[in-house]
């Protein structure tokens, strides 16, 4: 259908539309008009992605000079591919409606592992290996060596691309990862570099968060993207953690040992080169003196990882004299390593700020702040000069140099924690130095400053006001949308006690309590008897799940559950869990029915949807609070309190509730879907917890569904399931939760739609 969103013609590739989609597009357009940022929460399964794409594409067509590019960031590879497929659908619809040939270029970008077509390189298992191997075939100095020695191996796909690929731009169209690979194979061009080159002139790019948020990668990939872009972060409920991760470093004894080996290799290589090709080192020295850091204009293939600090923090001056010659720099690194080793030789926990650390290192080994800041830069230059092929082998020393640069660049927002052992095993020495970012706004700041509109959206962003605070930006629109429903297809229930009236909770003091565990087991058992097909249960942590499963096993509860359904359990091993997941789906598919026991914050809870029969009920055992004894967490909480006036408890509860909401939200993926959401902890009934659930869940949580016993839960669930099993036809939805164009244009409907968006 063709929509008129406040004067903008929007092509929407479906016959009907959900009212909230219309409302969402309205808010989105206002955000784009204001050239500002927005925070939008809309339940998953209400067609958020297609609404976003339809509106922004329409906007790009109508105002090609205002918005030149859409940068769509998502979390997982399947998500990225889904977005591109939805885009393809939209573009096909557009061409069909207008008869015009679509002149948009849209493409997905992913790591080399997902795009490489080189027969040997692509068969490597890990992304790191693929990157390293690719680098060893395509780095500019390797290719230069090949001029004198043609027998060296090369990647013909890159050579072909380099020779021809940049002359003709990628023809307009929608390219998913597989399409890029096909195109690359056909042309004999490297799809990865083709994609990286093409994003510069593409109208729409879909890629993962890291390409924008991790400075080490963003600098390489996204540096030249136009200012007039709209950036969308989809599934953004965890964006603060992504930001923090991209700036944090952990150093163990193993890292130091491997760095030591790296330094030795570097030293030997330098000696060798000195004998054979001393001019090369002199040339590098000359360049560094002149401050022409990248004098030769680093080829795109040379750098494997860029500077770990944000662009505006990088010093635009010459490398200081003390680390300019190769030997001096290696000596410098050795000293730094020795210092770190000494720091790890401790018996008690140390926590200090970056300035304290710098002061200490100056006093102990006379290392200045300035040369430290250039470490990452200097190491890269050296690796390039020495023509090191196996960059992956030097990851340890790269990590150390990145740490040096980070610690000397940022005096605020970071903390250094050195732990001599793990809390659980105080007898085993395993020292770790955590250099931890506490302020997510540091990594995302350049994104907000650079691009005219940044949209943060997800199914679970409640409470909405917290994201602008922790990410430190001022949105022009903040809205939460509810799900209009012709039938209430979600049923949130808070189970607070067992039939014996013992309170059910994962609270630390009572979690080992026999009665609590038994009641949790009975809940699972009862539900397994009445819920058809699949049930997914989430625990607060892996260790907790292990303990509960073991005691359920001993009590014979699992045996009885097995009479009703097969049991599959998430393990720390991703491959094993994937297998269990697939079998779980198979069991749901063939009617046998199964239960998946899983962990909040785990991979399953973040990346897997349980649509329709794959998840008819989700049980959240306990409130998934983060492990609060972690010193890193404590430091972060303190920082949040001091800098953003967010109280510890507020943040912890917010964090727990967003994960709980994520978990239970996995089961509902659309209006034809239905599912029970069972919160098995009495603490969910409290206003401070309940109030932090997304609005679309909260509004179905009535007083009658709080603090239930297991029996009451079973009764309510039975009733709900029986209702949902009735046929549900399109006519039931039309006019209520599904609109035709005419219905949409009626005055009354527009008024109702205006109420869907809830401004925070």
């Amino acid at each position: 259908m063709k929509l008129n969103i406040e004067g903008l013609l929007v092509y929407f590739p479906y016959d009907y539309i959900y009212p909230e989609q219309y409302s969402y597009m309205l808010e989105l357009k206002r955000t784009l008009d204001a050239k500002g940022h927005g925070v939008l929460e809309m339940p998953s399964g209400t067609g958020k992605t297609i609404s976003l794409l339809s509106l922004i594409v329409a906007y790009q067509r109508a105002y090609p000079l205002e918005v030149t590019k859409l940068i769509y960031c998502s979390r997982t590879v399947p998500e990225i591919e889904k977005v591109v497929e939805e885009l393809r659908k939209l573009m096909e619809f557009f061409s069909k409606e207008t008869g015009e040939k679509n002149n948009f270029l849209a493409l997905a970008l992913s790591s080399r592992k997902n795009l490489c077509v080189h027969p040997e390189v692509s068969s490597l298992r890990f992304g790191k290996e693929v990157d390293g191997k690719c680098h060893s075939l395509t780095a500019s100095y390797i290719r230069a060596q090949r001029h004198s020695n043609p027998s060296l191996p090369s990647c013909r796909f890159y050579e072909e691309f380099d020779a021809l690929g940049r002359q003709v731009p990628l023809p307009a169209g929608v390219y998913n990862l597989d399409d890029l690979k096909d195109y690359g194979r056909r042309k004999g061009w490297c799809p990865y570099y083709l994609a990286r080159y093409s994003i510069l002139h593409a109208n729409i790019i879909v890629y993962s968060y890291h390409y924008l948020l991790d400075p080490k990668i963003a600098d390489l990939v996204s540096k030249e993207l136009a200012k007039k872009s709209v950036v969308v972060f989809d599934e953004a409920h965890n964006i603060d953690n992504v930001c923090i991760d991209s700036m944090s470093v952990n150093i163990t004894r193993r890292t130091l040992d491997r760095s030591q080996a790296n330094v030795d290799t570097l030293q030997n290589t330098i000696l060798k080169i000195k004998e054979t090709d001393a001019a090369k080192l002199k040339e590098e020295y000359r360049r560094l003196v002149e401050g022409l850091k990248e004098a030769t204009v680093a080829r795109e293939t040379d750098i494997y990882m860029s500077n770990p600090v944000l662009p505006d923090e990088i010093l635009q001056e010459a490398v200081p004299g003390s680390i300019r010659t190769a030997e001096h720099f290696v000596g410098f690194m050795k000293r730094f390593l020795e210092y770190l080793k000494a720091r790890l030789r401790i018996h008690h926990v140390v926590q200090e700020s970056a300035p304290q650390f710098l002061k200490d290192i100056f006093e102990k080994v006379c290392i200045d702040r300035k040369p430290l800041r250039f470490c990452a830069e200097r190491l890269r230059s050296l690796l390039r000069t020495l023509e090191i092929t196996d960059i992956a082998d030097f990851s340890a020393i790269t990590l150390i140099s990145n740490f040096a640069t980070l610690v000397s660049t940022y005096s605020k927002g970071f903390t250094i924690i050195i732990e001599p052992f793990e809390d659980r095993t105080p007898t085993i020495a395993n020292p770790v130095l955590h250099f931890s970012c506490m302020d997510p706004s540091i990594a995302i700041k350049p994104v907000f400053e650079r691009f005219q509109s940044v949209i943060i959206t997800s199914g679970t962003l409640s409470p909405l006001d917290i994201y602008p605070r922790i990410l430190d930006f001022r949105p022009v629109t903040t809205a939460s949308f509810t799900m209009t429903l012709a039938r209430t297809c979600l049923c949130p229930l808070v189970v607070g006690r067992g039939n014996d009236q013992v309170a059910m909770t994962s609270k630390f003091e009572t979690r080992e309590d026999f009665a609590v565990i038994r009641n949790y087991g009975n809940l699972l058992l009862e539900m397994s008897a009445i819920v058809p097909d699949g049930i997914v249960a989430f625990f607060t942590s892996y260790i907790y799940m292990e303990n509960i499963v073991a005691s359920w096993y001993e009590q014979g509860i699992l045996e009885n559950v097995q009479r009703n359904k097969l049991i599959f359990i998430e393990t720390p091993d991703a491959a094993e869990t994937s297998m269990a997941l697939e079998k779980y789906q198979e069991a749901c598919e063939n009617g046998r029915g199964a239960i998946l026991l899983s962990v909040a914050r785990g991979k399953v809870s973040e990346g897997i949807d349980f649509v329709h029969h794959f998840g008819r009920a989700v049980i959240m055992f306990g409130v998934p609070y983060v492990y609060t004894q972690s010193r890193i967490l404590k430091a972060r909480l303190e920082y949040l309190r001091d800098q953003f006036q967010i109280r510890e408890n507020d943040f912890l509860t917010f964090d727990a509730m967003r994960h709980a909401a994520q978990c239970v939200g996995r089961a509902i993926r659309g209006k034809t879907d239905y599912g029970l959401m069972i919160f098995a902890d009495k603490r969910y009934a409290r206003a401070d917890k309940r109030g932090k659930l997304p609005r679309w869940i909260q509004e179905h949580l009535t007083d009658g569904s709080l603090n239930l016993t297991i029996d009451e839960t079973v009764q309510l669930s039975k009733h709900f399931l029986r209702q949902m099993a009735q046929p549900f036809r399109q006519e039931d939805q039309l006019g209520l939760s599904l609109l035709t164009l005419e219905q949409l244009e009626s005055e009354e409907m527009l008024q109702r739609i205006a109420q869907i968006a809830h401004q925070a």
Partner: protein
Amino acid sequence: MAALSEEVLLVVKRVRQRKQDGTLYLMAERIAWGPEGKDRFTVSHLYADIRCQKISPDGKAKIQLQLVLHTGESTNFHFSNESTALKDRDAAKDLLQQLLPKFKKRANKELEEKNRMLQEDPVLFQLYKDLVVSQVISAEEFWANRLSVNNVDHTLSNNKQEVGISAAFLADIRPQTDGCNGLRYNLTSDIIESVFRTYPAVKQKYAENVPHNLTEKEFWTRFFQSHYFHRDRISTGLQDIFSECAKQDEKGLKSMVIQGVKNPLVDLLSLEDKTLHEGYGSNLMVPSTSTAKTVKENSNSAIIKRFNHHSAMVLAAGSGKKIDAPNDQASETSSTDGNSRDSDVFQPPIKKVRIQEAIEYEDLHMENGRKTVALNLKTGGFSDLVGSLS
């Protein structure tokens, strides 16, 4: 004489039968005995006709071997060579032990097949009654014509739906105390069947050990006593006949894991577009679990593994799919190194379909000719459906 063209596996002299001295011959397909000095057999049984063998208890003076036939008749052989009688008997027994199961299976299979044909085809059954029961022709003659015909439409038998296995079959074997410090397990043939279907390794052990090393009862007693059955504990290094099974199960689980998953949307390994390298990021969420696990934790994770494996096996047994034997080294390796190739060739179609499914909003479309699948219980319709799907 027929014996000349047959392969003779064992010859035992001085074996008495009906008080007559003679020689016992074990051949490829039958066992025969001929009296001394004569060149013909007075006793000859096909292995397929033999139900079981019995031997005289060890301390007895007479060293004998008895063959019980399906018909209920039995034949006794008395090994009378004083010095080697026991050895002779055991040699014969051991050989028979190896031979009989092979023929037993074949015989059973044939019998089952015949039974099934009669049950499924009323016309044939009538014919059988008319001809065989009234002794117009012998059963062999009747089947000689039939079985070859049957092989052609063998596919028919595959249409029959197998009954799945209850996931809790082990739970159903509740031990009862027998009042004097012992436990009683009640086993039904259904349960045994379930155990065999879910745990082929146990079935293999059964075939190897019963009845020659152990009686059926002993076998199951040991099964319930074994660590294999109570596998929540870590193996204490105690060896029993089932410790191998545990290893095989582990291997099986591993090979399942290595095979990977077909649906890219549930493949957690390729979910993340991971660009964070080792050492970066903060492990805020979990206290790291890398180092030394306690015994309890180990046992807990063993239980979890066991549940995953058990469920997968039950599922596989129920859907009639074979989980490939773990000791099949060749297939294992080929699946690992062929992995990426395979995925390159086969994945896109599955992936495309899955992604399309995932982004589809069926209710946003105008309903035109809604696709519904009619429930069709007749086998004919089912095979049509299979045909159109494949």
